[in-house]
Each structure stands twice: as C-alpha cells, then as structure tokens.
C-alpha cells in the first residue's frame, strides 16, 4: 500500500487547497461532500444560512446493525463507520452548524423490527441500517408508514425497490445493491478467466433471501456472458459451523467458477474448510462480499487460495490513499477504532449512509434557509450526489445507491495483518446497474448473448 503523499499522487488536489475549501478543517475534509454542497466555505462556519431558524437540539439517530457473532464481523464495521462520520460531523459543529447527532446503536440480530419501532417511539429523526436484506424487507414498509427517513447501510436485496417497496419516499439505500455487485463479479469472472473457459458454475451462498437473490442474479448474468451450466447450488445457514458437504460437492463437480456471497465470519469458516479440502485446486472462487472478512480471515487460510472478491463501493486502495488525503485520513482513523483491522466496504456502508443523509440535510438547509422536514430531505436525497473518502456517490431517483465497484484477487498482507485486494479492476455503475425504472431481471434479459 502507498504510504506517502506526493504532488504527483494528489493529482492537483493539494492538501492545503482541499482543507481551505472546507474551512480549514481536516475533519470536515473527510465529509467533503457536505461542505461542497454549501455555497462557499464560510457557510460551514456560520452553521448554514438559516441562523436562528435551526434549533440547537441534538438530532436523535438510530443505527440497526449486527454487533455480535459471525455477522458482527461485518456489522461492527458499519457501526464504526457510522460512529466516525457522526463524530466528524459533531466536531465540525453538527448539522447546520448547530445540531449535533446522538447515535443509538442496537443489535439487529434479535427482533430487528421491534428495535426499529422502538427507535420510532423514541422520536428518532433518522434511522440508519440495517445490514441484513431480510431485516430490510421487514422495515422498509414500516419506514414508508412512519415517514421517517431511513438510509440503509446494506440490506441490498435487488427486489427491495422493485417489489417490496416499489414506490419509496422515505426509504433510501446508500450501498451498491445485489445486482451491481453480482454483475461486477460475473464481469470479473469473464475478465479473469475468459468467457470461453467458463462452462460450469457452482454456488455457495447464505441460506436466506440475500444469498438466493445473489445466486439467481449471478446465474442470469453469467449465462448471458457465457454458455455456463450451473452444476451445484448450496445454501448454508448464517453462522454454519460446517460447510464440508458443500465443499465436497464442489470438489465432485470441479466447476470452472464457484460463486459465493457468504459474508462476515462465514467467509472465514468457508475459506478455511475449503482450503483444508483442497477445493481451490478444483475451482476459482468469485465472491461479492468475501472481502467483508478482510480483518478476520487468517493468513494461513488464504495461502494457496484462488479468490477474487468484490468490494461493493469501497476499497481503501482505490482511490489510492496517496491520491486523496481524506481517504488516507479515514483509513488511518478507522484502523485506530476498536474492532477494525482494516475498513471494508461495510465500514463505508455506515460512514456513507450517515454522510448521504447529512449532506442532503445540509443541501436542504442551504436551499431553504431553515431546517427541512422529512419530506424535504427525502426530495433532496433523490438523485443526491456527494463525496466520501471512497469517492463520489449517487443515490439515484429510484432510491438505490450507485457508485463504482471494485474487484480483485484476495491475498493476505503480512504487513497490514489483514487481507487486501490485489490487481484491482474498477467497474462503473453504468456497467453494473440497470437504469432507474428498469428491473434488474429485465435489464439482464435485455443483454445480448
């Protein structure tokens, strides 16, 4: 990893110039989008243009995420990301320069709908999360009913805004969603192996809506890109301690490609047991969220593996930390937090969800001159573009997040003490996401073979 910043690396965006543009605050620089939405640097110092129109009451916010167990490997990343974003906003004076954010975090694991409703009863003005697609499908209709904005960190099932909540007003998603990361990995498989060399495909995916959705989309995408036949599909439950049967089945079939959307601690279990069963001698693994276990999977488990992993919309190596100082600052700050070996895409889920909402509120304050209503914030969030240390993001008019995605070989970095991606390819949102208003399935169907 590049550790130093040079004039060449910065690509013309000097640190002094960048900090000047956001009022001289390195902290604010990490929320660059928040500041660039203001008319000039002074506005941030003045707390927006509304003066006394904005109360100084703290904003009560809630985050649903997994804080324990195997899913906690991923959920704690989202929590730490959200916490750092809130900390930086508060240190910069709060929303509109006056309203600090108080963030409550609850574990998503048990009765997440009850936890969400508790947030609403407590008067939360915004909620973030959840991680699980199953939870997201439960709470999204409630979000619409309660008319309190939710910006999900993950909950990436493709059908959410196609079927569950087809015409959302208050429910938004920061993260690149299933079809985007799956198409990224289908393209990555063709890029790495070649379409002519992919004739058989297997899958090991989590045994619930997310995993089933990802395998269905991957099958559809890879069969448009190649003539591949699906020879095995396995769906272990979340937190499964034994994946030997799925691995044995893959060894039996020796597929050219094995697709996996396992995540969190399940990745570690799968990779360790697959390695012990010599599975990587029989197949190449492409996984959308395997990199979510970057800080958890041990070096010996990754040795000799052949895994290409996606990274939704964030990989700390791109933009290279040397090229953009906020990325470097976020990477260093994240690593100092408890439970974060390296920040992953899910760290950016938490950070980005808070930033998406905060920058939209700032934009609305700038436009209105007063603190916006839930409906006004929702209107601004539609089509909202903003920066984070992971680059530029957009929440499209269909409420889906849409950003660049990354894929590369997953290797263990002894110096870093964690996994990283090597030889990374970048895929633009236009390559991986259907246009707004077109369902993922129809979009994939429209591909020419």
């Amino acid at each position, binding site marked *: 990893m590049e550790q130093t910043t040079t004039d060449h690396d910065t690509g013309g965006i000097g640190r002094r110039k960048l900090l000047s543009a956001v009022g001289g605050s390195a902290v604010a620089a990490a929320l660059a989008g928040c500041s660039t939405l203001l008319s000039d640097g002074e506005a941030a110092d003045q707390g927006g243009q509304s003066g006394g129109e904005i109360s100084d009451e703290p904003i009560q916010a809630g985050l649903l995420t997994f804080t324990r167990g195997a899913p906690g490997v991923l959920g704690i990343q989202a929590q730490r990301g959200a916490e750092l974003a809130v900390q930086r906003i508060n240190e910069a004076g709060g929303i509109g320069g006056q309203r600090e954010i108080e963030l409550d975090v609850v574990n998503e694991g048990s009765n997440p709908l009850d936890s969400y409703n508790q947030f609403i009863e407590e008067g939360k003005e915004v909620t973030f999360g959840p991680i699980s697609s199953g939870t997201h499908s439960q709470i999204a209709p409630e979000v619409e009913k309660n008319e309190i904005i939710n910006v999900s960190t993950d909950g990436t099932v493709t059908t959410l805004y196609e079927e569950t909540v087809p015409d959302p007003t208050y429910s938004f998603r920061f993260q690149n969603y299933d079809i985007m990361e799956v198409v990224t990995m289908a393209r990555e498989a063709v890029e790495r192996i070649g379409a002519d060399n992919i004739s058989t495909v297997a899958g090991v995916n989590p045994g619930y809506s997310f995993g089933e959705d990802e395998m269905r989309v991957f099958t559809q995408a890879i069969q448009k890109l190649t003539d591949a036949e699906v020879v095995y*599909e396995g769906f272990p439950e979340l937190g499964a301690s034994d994946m030997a049967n799925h691995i044995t089945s893959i060894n039996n079939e020796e597929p050219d490609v094995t697709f996996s959307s396992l995540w969190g601690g399940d990745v570690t279990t799968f990779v360790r047991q697959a390695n012990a069963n010599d599975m990587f001698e029989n197949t190449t693994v492409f996984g959308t969220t395997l990199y979510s276990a970057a800080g958890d999977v041990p070096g010996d488990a990754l040795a000799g593996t052949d895994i290409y992993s996606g990274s939704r919309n964030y990989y700390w190596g791109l933009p290279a930390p040397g090229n953009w100082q906020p990325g470097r600052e976020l990477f260093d700050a994240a690593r100092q937090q408890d439970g974060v070996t390296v920040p992953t895409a899910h760290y950016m889920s938490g950070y980005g969800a808070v930033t998406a909402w905060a920058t939209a509120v700032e934009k609305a304050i700038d436009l209105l001159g007063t603190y916006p209503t839930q409906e006004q914030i929702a209107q601004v969030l539609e089509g909202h573009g903003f920066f984070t240390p992971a680059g530029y993001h957009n929440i499209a008019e269909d409420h889906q997040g849409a950003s660049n995605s990354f894929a590369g070989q997953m290797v263990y970095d002894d110096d870093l003490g964690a996994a990283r991606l090597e030889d990374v390819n970048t895929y633009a949102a236009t390559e991986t996401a259907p246009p707004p208003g077109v369902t993922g399935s129809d979009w994939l169907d429209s591909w020419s073979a």
Partner: protein
Amino acid sequence: MAVTPTAALVQTLNGIQFGFILFMIASGLTVILGILDVLNLAHGELFSLGAYTAIGVFGFIIGVIGPPGGGVVGTAVFILAVLAAVLVTAAILLPVGTLFEAVFLRQIYDRDQVYQLVLTFALLLILLDVKKFIWGDSSIRTDAVYSAINAIPTSELVGLNYPTYNVFVILVGSVVVVGLFWFFERTKTGRIIRATAIDREMATAIGVSTDRVFTLVFALGAFLAGFAGAVAVPPTSATLEMGTNPLVLSFVVIVIGGLGSLRGAFVGALLVGIIRSWMITLYPPGEIAAPFAIMALILLVKPEGLFGTWGETA
C-alpha cells in the same frame, strides 16, 4: 448432480464426523436425563463454554510447546498437545457442572419438572451473559490447530482428498464412545451410576450416596459438553449463539435413540449426521427438516425411541 463413489464416501465421512460431534454433546445430555431425570436446557451453553475455553487453552498450550514441529515426533507432540488441551478444557467444565448440580439443581429434584426446565433455562441465560462478559460480543477463533493437523497427509495415503482434522474428530469420537461404554459397563462407578438409574431407592438402600452420584453425573455431562466444544471449535469460530443448534439437534438425537439411552444417542447421532449430510447433497432445502422427519417417523413407529430407556444396558 452425479455423485461419484469418492464423493459419496467423503459425504458419508462428513456425516459420520458431524455425528460424532453430535454424540459427544448428546451423550452428556442423555446421561443427565437418564440418571437425574433432568432435561438440561443449559447443555448447549456448556458446549459453547467449552469452545470458548478451548480457544484460550489451545493458545496457552501451543504457546508453551511452540509451533507444530516437523517429522513424526514433532507431529505426534503437537497432536498430544491438542489432545491435552481438549482434556484440560473438559476438566475445566467439571467444577462448573459440579457447581450447577450442587447449588441449583439439588434444591428442586422433588419438584415438578417444569421447575427444572425454568431453572436450566435460567442457567442457559446466565451462561450466555457470562460468555459475553468474559469474551465479548464478537466471535473468536483458534487458528493454529485446524491448519496444523490438516497438514498431516493421512487421507492421501489411501488416495482420498479429506481433511485430516475430520479424521481426528472421528478417531477421538470413537475413543469417547468406547470409553463411555467401557466406563458404564466395566467400572464399579459406572455400575453404581447405572444401578442408581434403574432403581434409585434400592441403590440408596445398599449404601449408594445418590447426592454424590448425581453430582458426578452432572459433572460428567458438563465434561462431555466441554470436550465436544473443544473438538468442534477449530474449524469454525466460537460465537455467543453457537449453543442453540447443537442443543436442538441433541434433543432430536436422544428422542430418536430413546430418552436416556447412551446406545440410542450413539445410533441417533450417526443417523442424524449421515442423513443430514446426504440431504445437503441431494436435496439441500431438506437439511433442516430431515432430522425432525426421522424423529417424527420413529416416534410414530416406536414411541419409546430406538433403544428405550437407559439402565439395564448402556
């Protein structure tokens, strides 16, 4: 999906391996049920406690002997160290079991069974919080054991691609099975325990201290749960929720085998392990339902389970 003979053999071995883990858990549950007439809902948490404890014990013992050495001697030393860590872990669970029986369960033997269920459920919750207090929310793992044992090329000797750690589990599980049957069939203590199970009053009349037997049996159950946790944890992680599924499957196993029958628990565990393994291969959605379907079928045909109540024979 065409299944080759080799894949069929490996899937069956996977099932046997899982069955042995299940037996190690279910044996403790069934021994406590057979003698004390207590359905211990906290048994899964004792298994989980064993897994958490083992990670620390593995770390300590491997730290003392160093990384696995090369050659036959180095390998043997490492495996002996792992076995020692498993036994130390199980031994740590002995006083936990003793404490539970002596302080809590002993007070309510004469009461309705619902009190036992409530009490053991309370112990389950307490153990859950104890684990959270000591080890935190996040999952934890031991790295060295699984990869080091897999580095030993046992299965390749017969031309098979199979992890050595699974072979290790099957061998250790076999020793546990033989050891348990030997203990209850051949030793004086084992016979006293069985006699107490068959006729508690008669055992008391001939001078057996049922208090001691009960404490010993509960401690033995905790020992077996801890042993199973230590053996099961290297390929995966220890998590707060890990006790739930094994507990449920153990209930299924002991119902299939016959409540309180050790032999039944063994047969039931292998049956559940192998059928689950094949179900994952042939019809994955049936993985969860299959053990319950077998249980329902056996309850219909033979309501007392395959081997009925334990006591006359182990």
